């Protein structure tokens, strides 16, 4: 079985301006979402207390909210989590004693709602939270630098620049989706974003590898034609890998439960954008940066070869 029996190379580079323009629009939209709505950072980064409670019957968040408000917990945010009988109570870092607060709420629920069981309590102090945010940013920066260095070493600086811009584009769009839909952004999601970074570059490298090989193999043809050929020939692989990885990630999205939901969502968006970005953003960038055959194919005749 084969999905693609492409005889001639598809002229991707002819539409490069259009695809990159569309990407740029998407990129700007994502940044706008990040600026306007901001990331919905969860307790990992903001600090505070989160209590997950399982009730014997379906329970409306508003009821619990009212119950807590009557007992002076007006700042509690309550929402259903996973199922209707599970409730997540978030308390901001109330300063005073966030941990004691959790214990008091546990006791309160035990009295007012017999049968309710606390499934998990999470307390993150404010200094830990802001530090994790810093570390996350640092990790992103470090990975970006590491990958640029590796690609410069193995390929050429134009490839490294193209790949890293395309990758940043992918990551920003993933973050933009999280901002737009206000999906809770946890430490696990950050891990997924970094994995997207790796995955997206991975995809780009496969195309770049073929571009380099084509330059060495094909004696004629413009840079655009060579890139077109490389993309066409790896297209089958790009789409297959994409489908297979997506199968796994969707399985996590639907079956992994609420803890893995954010992770799987980031990966889902990341794989779509990453695949698109590596083909239709990274390659045109390399072309526009002025890649020529000479940059990749070593000159044959040098004076040392002659007797």
């Amino acid at each position, binding site marked *: 079985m084969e999905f693609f029996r492409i005889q001639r190379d598809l002229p991707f580079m002819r539409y490069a301006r259009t695809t990159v323009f569309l990407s740029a629009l998407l990129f700007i939209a994502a940044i706008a979402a990040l600026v306007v709505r901001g990331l919905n950072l969860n307790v990992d980064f903001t600090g505070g207390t989160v209590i997950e409670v399982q009730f014997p019957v379906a329970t409306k968040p508003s009821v619990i909210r009212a119950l807590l408000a009557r007992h002076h917990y007006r700042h509690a945010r309550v929402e259903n989590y996973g199922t209707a009988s599970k409730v997540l109570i978030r308390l901001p870092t109330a300063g005073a004693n966030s941990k004691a607060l959790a214990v008091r709420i546990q006791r309160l629920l035990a009295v007012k709602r017999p049968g309710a069981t606390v499934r*998990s309590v999470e307390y*993150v102090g404010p200094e830990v939270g802001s530090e994790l945010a810093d570390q996350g940013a640092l990790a992103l920066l470090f990975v970006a630098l590491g990958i640029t260095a590796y690609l410069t070493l193995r390929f050429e600086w134009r490839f490294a620049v193209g790949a890293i811009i395309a990758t940043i584009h992918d990551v920003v769009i993933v973050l933009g989706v999280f901002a737009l839909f206000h999906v809770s952004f946890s*430490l*696990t999601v950050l891990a997924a974003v970094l994995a997207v970074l790796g995955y997206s570059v991975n995809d780009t490298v496969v195309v770049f590898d073929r571009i380099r090989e084509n330059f060495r193999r094909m004696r004629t043809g413009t840079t655009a034609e060579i890139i077109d050929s490389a993309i066409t020939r790896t297209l089958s*692989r790009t789409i297959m890998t994409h489908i*297979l990885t997506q199968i796994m990630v969707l399985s*996590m999205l639907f*079956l992994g439960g609420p*803890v893995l939901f954010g992770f799987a969502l980031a990966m889902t968006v990341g794989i779509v954008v990453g695949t698109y970005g590596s083909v239709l953003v990274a390659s045109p960038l390399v072309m526009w940066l002025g890649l020529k055959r000479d940059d990749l194919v070593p000159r044959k005749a040098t004076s040392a070869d002659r007797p």
Partner: protein
Amino acid sequence: MNQYPWWKNALIGLVIVLGLIYALPNVYGDNPAVEISGSHGATAGARTLVRVKDWLARAHLPYLRATRTDKGIQVRFARAGVQLRARDLIAQKLGSHDHTALALAPAAPRWLRALGARPMYLGLDLRGGVHFLLKVDMHAALHKALVEDTRTLRRALRHAHIRYREARLGKTGALTLRFRNKTQTRLAKRLIAQRFQDLRVLSTGANRLRATMTRAAILAKRRYALSQNLTALRRRVNELGVAAPVIQQEGDSRIVVELPGVEDIARAKEILGRTATLEIHMVDDKDNLARALAGDVPPGTRLYYNRHDQPILLYRRVLYSGDDITNASTGVDSQDGQPVVNITLNGRGAAINARVTRHNVGKRMAVVYVEIRSHLKRTSNGVPVRGPDGRRIRITQKIEHVITAPVIREALGGSFQITGIGSIRQARNLALLLRAGALAAPVSIIAERTVGPSLGAANIARGFYATLIGFVAIALFMAIYYRAFGLMAATALAINVVLLVAVLSVLQATLTLPGIAGIALTVGMAIDANVLIFERIREELRNKNTPQASIATGFDKALGTIVDSNMTTLIAGLALFWLGSGSVRGFAVTLCLGILTSLFSAILVTRAFVNAYYGRRRRLARLAI
């Protein structure tokens, strides 16, 4: 032809077999267990075993197996809930003679255990339990060290007959010394330079000298405080009897404590966070108390209060402290039935105790309980106060009270009793804290995470099914799309998962829910290598190459691409490992190891399969790809 030499096939086979063996214990998992060991290292005997079985049967607590081991008695249970109830029952029935602890016993057969094969170490989000991130108050640790230095310096000055007017420790951590004249100042400066490597003279005036701790000394003190706290916490956690706890250093001033399966969080916190120790002082009974209460405290003494807020005047000098205590146990006073704590001292403590008590029969000696607590400084409406550097200001509070001040009736030796403690529970906690040693510096909990055991089990199930269903879907897709080659790749992928699980088990790396996500992701990404190879082979076939040549070129040409593309993901994984903590680190570990195992399975294992299936055929017309 496409053939691996025999040794290469054998090596691949060996790796797969080893992988299967070391991944196998995960199928069996762990049993929650209770371990009973006799007091003072004696093993609990056969009679105890019979009694334990009887108690459990009467309480209707089902157990899987109760056996004698080389350490004592081990009782295995099917569920953690039963295990906890059984532990409480056994501990209560056995009394204080035997020690009970929770444990996790691998359920794998004996031969597997003999090979050292253990199941993966599950993280708290999968197992349930409490996670604490503790911060060591380095400021307090340094202050303590400086106080000690000041004391020794005073002593040294006196010994060298250098007369000083004042030797004071300032708030900034600098020591200020004042002298009568220049000569004394110069002599003191020389003394510090010669004898106090930890101190650095900041400035000297005619009659003044300022010194502070050197940078190297500060670093050493910090390191000492951290390692000493780690040791003390480890002992405390052992006393709590938790199965497979984690006590780890994180960064230069933090400690992670993970207590799987702990339900009584309040007690765990109380035991972990307390920095209690004892100090033994002599009581000033020379009728100076009234004077001291009036505000004129005689030099060398200090006012203390006992539990009932009654004042008592003690000499400042600490005879010996909790550091010299080697053992502490609870008991009941034979005369009045009140709880007591029996204390055993080390050689140094015993020697001091013997000397002091011999010379002071008839006088009183006070046992002072010292606890250091620290909390954030807040304004009246609860907002943390920040210092000029933007950091939150932490207040360290030293709580001291006299537990008891008995009259010395005779010369004591290496062991004695403390009375007047209060309840049995307080006596037990005091004994535990003393036994486990004091913390070098106070700690505070800066993050905490509790996961209930049922949530943990649900997380395992979800992660497992998500991976399984994803895997099956990928395998089907591959088999349909690449036919025979797809089937071989799917088999190699299964081997990849087995190898990854085996490596994680052998390394005993912590598996978290994001870690399971990492395994799932690896499965998705590992198949990429096979797709790359197979697409290359198809391309070669399209270019009218022979099947055998296509296989060889396909594998060869894809290799460089595979390595390059995986390397970038590996960079991301390493960064995550470096910067991440807890569950994110778990993800990074599985991702990085998964890349390595997938390279092996996708390239070598698949190739071995293809070679075995097609390699020998000379006249191969077409490939099922």
